């Protein structure tokens, strides 16, 4: 699998089955889709809000539609994909809970990856600095960040439990390395969940 992929995408790419049907929601310039297509013959489709990202993805031969995860997922039929993927996009949606519901309707399984707002660096920054954290994974200031729903690993687990979804897999990242599940809410910079309804 491509070494240049972002760590969470690389992890997802390793886990996706050969020749699966995949919808990548918030696919950016299509890096994950291209890797899945080339390495695993995956039938990948993408949804992306930014026009120049879409142009770049279509320019590399991918099927990507310009649209908004909050409003456009309802046009996809039930169970039409093996996986729906939402990587680093959850925290930018208006209603993350409804978006995950849609992912689980469209895909038989859903990957959801997000930066963990409860990572200790962020906690210290808020506790001692009294300011909204600006870290490697959350590089933008509070007023220009696209992240409108900051979420922690424990918040997400609570949502999964409340909605009755099942967790088929979970992975945690610090830097580029996979890290322990123990105290993930404190030590993971990034979380990847594989869910099903």
């Amino acid at each position, binding site marked *: 699998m491509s070494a240049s992929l972002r760590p969470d995408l690389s992890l997802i790419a390793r886990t996706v089955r050969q020749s699966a049907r995949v919808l990548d929601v918030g696919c950016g310039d299509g890096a994950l889709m291209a890797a899945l*297509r080339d390495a695993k013959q995956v039938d990948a*489709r993408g949804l992306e809000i930014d*026009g*120049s990202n*879409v*142009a*770049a*993805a*279509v*320019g*590399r*031969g*991918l*099927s*990507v*539609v*310009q*649209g908004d995860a909050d409003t*456009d997922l309802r*046009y*996809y*039929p039930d169970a*039409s994909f093996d996986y729906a993927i939402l990587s680093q996009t959850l925290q930018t949606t208006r209603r993350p809970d409804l978006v995950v519901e849609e992912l689980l309707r469209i895909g038989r399984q859903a990957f959801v990856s997000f930066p963990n707002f409860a990572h200790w660096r962020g906690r210290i920054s808020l506790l001692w600095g009294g300011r909204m954290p600006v870290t490697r994974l959350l590089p933008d200031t509070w007023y220009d960040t696209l992240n409108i729903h900051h979420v922690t690993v424990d918040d997400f687990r609570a949502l999964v439990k409340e909605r009755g979804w099942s967790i088929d897999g979970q992975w945690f990242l610090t830097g580029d390395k996979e890290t322990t599940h123990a105290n993930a809410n404190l030590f993971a910079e990034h979380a990847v969940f594989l869910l099903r309804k």
Partner: protein
Amino acid sequence: MASVPLSQDSRFGLRRQVRLAGPLQLSSGAALGPVDIAYETYGAMNADRSNVILICHALTGDQYVASDHPATGKPGWWWRLVGADKPVDPARHFIVCANVIGSCMGSSGPASIDPAIGDSYAMRFPVLTIADMVRAQAMLLDHLGVDRLHAVIGGSMGGMQALTWPTIFPDRVESCIVIASTARHSAQNIAFHEVGRQAIMADPNWRGGDYYADGQIPSAGLAVARMAAHITYLSEAGLTEKFGRRLQGRPENPNGAKTFGFDADFQVESYLRHQGLSFVERFDANSYLYITRAMDYYDIADDHGGSLAKAFAASQARFCLVSFDTDWLYPTAESRIIVHALNAGGAQASFVELSSPFGHDAFLLECPELNRVVDGFLKGGRA
């Protein structure tokens, strides 16, 4: 199968015209025959005939997509997209572009001679639909020995034909590129066309369409029709940038002046008048009536029990849709309707809204992103 020796085959090349016996069964129930089709081909068919691309032209367009226009000497109307080292390239593709039936550049239309009466059809020409134009193109492809299209590509009315292709001939289309277009004509689209048609028919020279004999054509009406339509091809911001409220310079007053009369004081008036006048030299008024009518009848969902998704159900084609953010004639929302229908049917669809200041006309103008999208999409099908 051996490669077709193009040089020895008179079916291929520039400025071709063929008379096909037909009859072509039309949407209206009428039949048209014989059917003349004027067309051009570029490049060579490969051995397995898998590199054929059909380009569809817009309302007042023609078959000269990538060669100089024989009358005006201007380069082909889509030379930015079709040509050497362009996304559609004769070195790699066998490219076909045909004048639509109903038009006046060599294909059968109201100015053609009706063999039954030995005189121009005029308004006796049958009313056409976009689907009829597509069926005529399919007749031409049969004549050229083309079974399947690697791609059908069009902008504006050309996009309507491109989108109609897989709904009528699902087995003949591998991919479909629809630029600045729609799946149906809106009330506003129909309204603008009606203004144009009424302008033509109100011209005393129109005479029920029988103006061919004495050459006294309804040029004033056709020019007004073109002026009104031309406004819809541009954006408000584009017009403001190009003309603003600037006055037209004259020999006696190079900076222009208000004449307190009804000459073309403003540059934008002068520009539109020029557009209207030059148009009547190259286009037939009755063809304008017939083609705008075909566009107004266009509604793919309506032809499939009201469901756009159903229209594409039999097709395995890949789709690429492109809209422009300042196009208010066929705005992005129209492309989204198509995309949603394709997604609902699980089709391989791509869609992007590109940014351009030039309104609907953007699809004909310099747009590197459009070229990148079309190139990537066409090559993606070969991966």
